[in-house]
């Protein structure tokens, strides 16, 4: 008892005396006893358990979400890495933890740092689901006026915001997409570390298991010294991830601050992915243009040539736009003029026709169409409208408010959402279960992001994914040599990052660029792509990568 500080209420009795001296104002019995009842109702009579569940009768929490919240509070004392796989509801877990602390009066102010594209979504979720009065940070807001602020990391670390934040004592800090903090030399990292904070949650779907040192860095934000200091850690474990497998003690230490559930472990796999690739042939005229492009005498860099080829597989418009640009700029007019004329004369794109056919066969259900090109997006919107199909566009460049508005339009009024690549991140569209990959991105992570918009927590139906691919073109290469081989469509590719790191490939896109750039013939490209995919395939079957979930999983 000696070590426990006891605070007494010195103000009340003086106030009571002075009210009695003034003979009022007094409360009647009803209101007086109601205030007492209110206090009895809102107090927390036990250290354990989640009071928040009684306060949120309208939310159906899943078992694993409640377990995560309890574990983070009771075992990890409010400092934890939540690393559930994509789509298992990390936001909900974090909201539940924050709510619990607020109900118990342990958190009065909080700073929530999330990607800019997700700010509004977080605000909405915390307000509507959890009744947490969180507000998005706006220019000229004081960081101190609102107790619960949501902001992007980039905004927060800019001056003078950074100074104001560092100056504040926070009860609770949350960082979403925390894998961005894995490098301790970055400004982001140093900024987050220097914030004064009591409780702290780091959320990440791609667990930072690439390098041990990255885990070390994240954990150091939460509990410095938990894994020893930097030098001793490097000395003991080096930078080798394999050490983790060999050292059960280290594994245990990591489990003390990190919670990871997998779809498999939570039995949330009911919603399946059904993939269908629709093979299409170019009609004669379009084929001619494609071959002309392949055989053009102009010495384009191989990569830009590939770009034009990909574009002509997407729409006349996309290809026409880029070709006419260089035709003016680089004095290729003489060679390109006939080609451009040919493109102009092309009939409707065979893929667009296919999309209409496909959407009609899907019936009344909502469909998302993804394309890589803005020009294609415009074209498709017009083309669908000609066929009586309503659609709304979506781009990453839209302002937050416009994004929300487009999403709402799609939900309530339009059948189709046509999104460009950049639109892939930051919207949740669980109410839709059909996705058309009008063209395929070269970066498999982006593909996963596309699918992740609809195949996520809350999706009740099976998800249908359609790939439109034109035979004997560059599209066929990509699909056959890369995607199909490494089975990307079927599996959540959380591991891909690790696989690439393992192979020392920094980005699959640049790897492919260089393959195309350095190859002199189509045959050579095919062989090299083949090699690449078998390496990835090989690494994936490496038992070390397979054990990831065993290492970090809590089940």
């Amino acid at each position, binding site marked *: *008892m000696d*070590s*426990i*500080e*006891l*605070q*007494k*209420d010195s103000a*009340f*009795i003086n*106030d*009571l*005396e002075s009210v*009695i001296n003034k003979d*009022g*104002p*007094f*409360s*009647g*019995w*009803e*209101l*007086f*006893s*109601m*205030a*007492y*009842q*209110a*206090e*009895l*109702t*809102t*107090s*927390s*009579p*036990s*250290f*354990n358990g989640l009071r*928040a569940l*009684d*306060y949120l*009768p309208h939310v159906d929490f899943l078992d694993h979400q409640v377990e995560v919240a309890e574990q983070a509070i*009771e075992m990890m*004392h*409010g400092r934890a890495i939540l690393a559930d796989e994509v789509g298992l509801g990390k936001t909900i877990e974090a909201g539940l933890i924050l709510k619990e602390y607020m109900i*118990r*009066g*342990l958190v009065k102010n909080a700073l929530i740092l999330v990607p800019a594209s997700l700010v509004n979504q977080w605000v909405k979720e915390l307000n509507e689901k959890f*009744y947490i009065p969180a507000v998005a940070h706006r220019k000229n807001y004081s960081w101190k006026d609102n107790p619960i602020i949501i902001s992007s990391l980039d905004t927060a670390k800019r001056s003078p915001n950074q100074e104001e934040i560092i100056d504040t004592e926070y009860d609770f800090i949350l960082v979403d997409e925390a894998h961005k903090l894995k490098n301790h030399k970055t400004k982001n990292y140093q900024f987050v570390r*220097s914030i*004064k904070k*009591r*409780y702290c949650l780091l959320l990440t779907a791609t667990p930072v298991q690439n390098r041990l040192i990255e885990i070390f860095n994240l954990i150091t934000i939460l*509990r*410095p*010294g*938990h894994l*020893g*200091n930097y030098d001793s850690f490097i000395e003991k474990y080096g930078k080798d991830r394999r050490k983790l497998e060999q050292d059960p003690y280290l594994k245990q230490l990591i489990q003390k601050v990190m919670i990871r559930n997998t779809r498999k472990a939570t039995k949330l796999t009911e919603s399946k992915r059904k993939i269908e690739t629709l093979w299409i042939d170019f009609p004669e005229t379009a084929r001619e243009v494609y071959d002309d492009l392949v055989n053009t005498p102009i010495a384009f860099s191989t990569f830009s040539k590939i770009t034009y080829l990909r574009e002509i597989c997407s729409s006349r418009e996309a290809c026409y736009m880029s070709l006419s640009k260089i035709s003016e700029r680089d004095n290729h007019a003489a060679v390109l003029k006939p080609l451009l004329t040919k493109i102009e004369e092309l009939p409707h794109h065979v893929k667009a026709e296919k999309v209409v056919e496909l959407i009609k066969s899907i019936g009344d259900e909502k469909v998302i169409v993804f394309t890589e090109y803005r020009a294609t997006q415009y074209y498709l919107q017009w083309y669908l409208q000609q066929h009586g199909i309503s659609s709304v566009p979506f781009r990453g460049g839209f302002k937050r408010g416009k994004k929300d508005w487009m999403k709402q339009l799609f939900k309530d009024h339009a059948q189709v959402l046509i999104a460009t690549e950049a639109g892939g991140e930051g919207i949740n569209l669980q109410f839709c279960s059909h996705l058309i990959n009008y063209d395929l991105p070269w970066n498999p992570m982006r593909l996963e992001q596309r699918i992740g918009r609809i195949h996520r927590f809350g999706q009740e139906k099976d998800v249908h994914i359609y790939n439109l691919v034109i035979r004997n073109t560059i599209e066929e290469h990509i699909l056959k040599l890369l995607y199909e081989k490494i089975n990307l469509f079927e599996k959540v590719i959380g591991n891909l990052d690790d696989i690439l790191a393992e192979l020392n490939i920094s980005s699959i896109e640049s790897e492919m660029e260089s393959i195309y750039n350095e190859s002199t013939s189509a045959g050579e490209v095919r062989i090299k792509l083949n090699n690449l995919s078998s390496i990835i395939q090989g690494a994936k079957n490496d038992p070390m990568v397979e054990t990831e979930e065993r290492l970090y999983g809590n089940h």
Partner: protein
Amino acid sequence: MAITNLNQFLTDYFSAKDCEIISNHDGVIQIQLNEQMDRELMNRPFYWHYIKKIGRTGDPMQLTLITNPQKRDEQGEWIHFGSPRLQQIMNHLKEKEKFTKLFQSMDVTEKTALHPWLVINFKISYQGQHKKDEIISIGLHLVNGMMKLDMMNLLTKFSLQTTISDYCFTLSPMIKIKSGYLRMEAVLSNYIEEQEHTWAKKSSELLEEEIQTLKHFYQGDEESEQMQKEQEALMKRYQPNIAMNVINGGIVYLQQDAL
């Protein structure tokens, strides 16, 4: 005494605040607010400012509260233990209904003495790595010094009013209010001290452990600002403390031997 029947609680509340209950069926309550309650609950200061400025009386709103979850899709606000509306009402209660002076209602024709009781409702919060509350209601007879626990519950069997009944008079306290209060505090301190605080011990141990870990991390750099910051955060997170706060309290005059 915690709220179990929300519908009853709300109708009692709005009646006590002099608002008319227009209807109350099947878990849907319709209330006509008065000006004061409109100002307190509806958050429209500009409206009232404007109305007063042009010298009109204003038009308080009606409120429809739904306590029956089956009816939550009907027009109105679904109100439950987590909803902002109920939080708002409970916060108003806790802020505003702090002091009382009450008299037992008597139906007598001869002179009757009423004895003064000091009634204080305490909330004790135990906070270490986690937090819990204990609520204790105490009554102290300000003439003979008798002390009763669970006072609020005991008081429910009387009819209490803010004015004194005919033929009744109050006895003056022998014990001053302040010293009465200090007696209560002493009893509570004693009660707290006699408990076994395993939670605090555990929390202190955790704190010690964490500080050691921290020191290990900052070996050779113990004076750094970052380390100080981290250590402060640890103290805040684990350092056990107990807070004794008053929810509300006041004087209640009861007949002799009422309790």
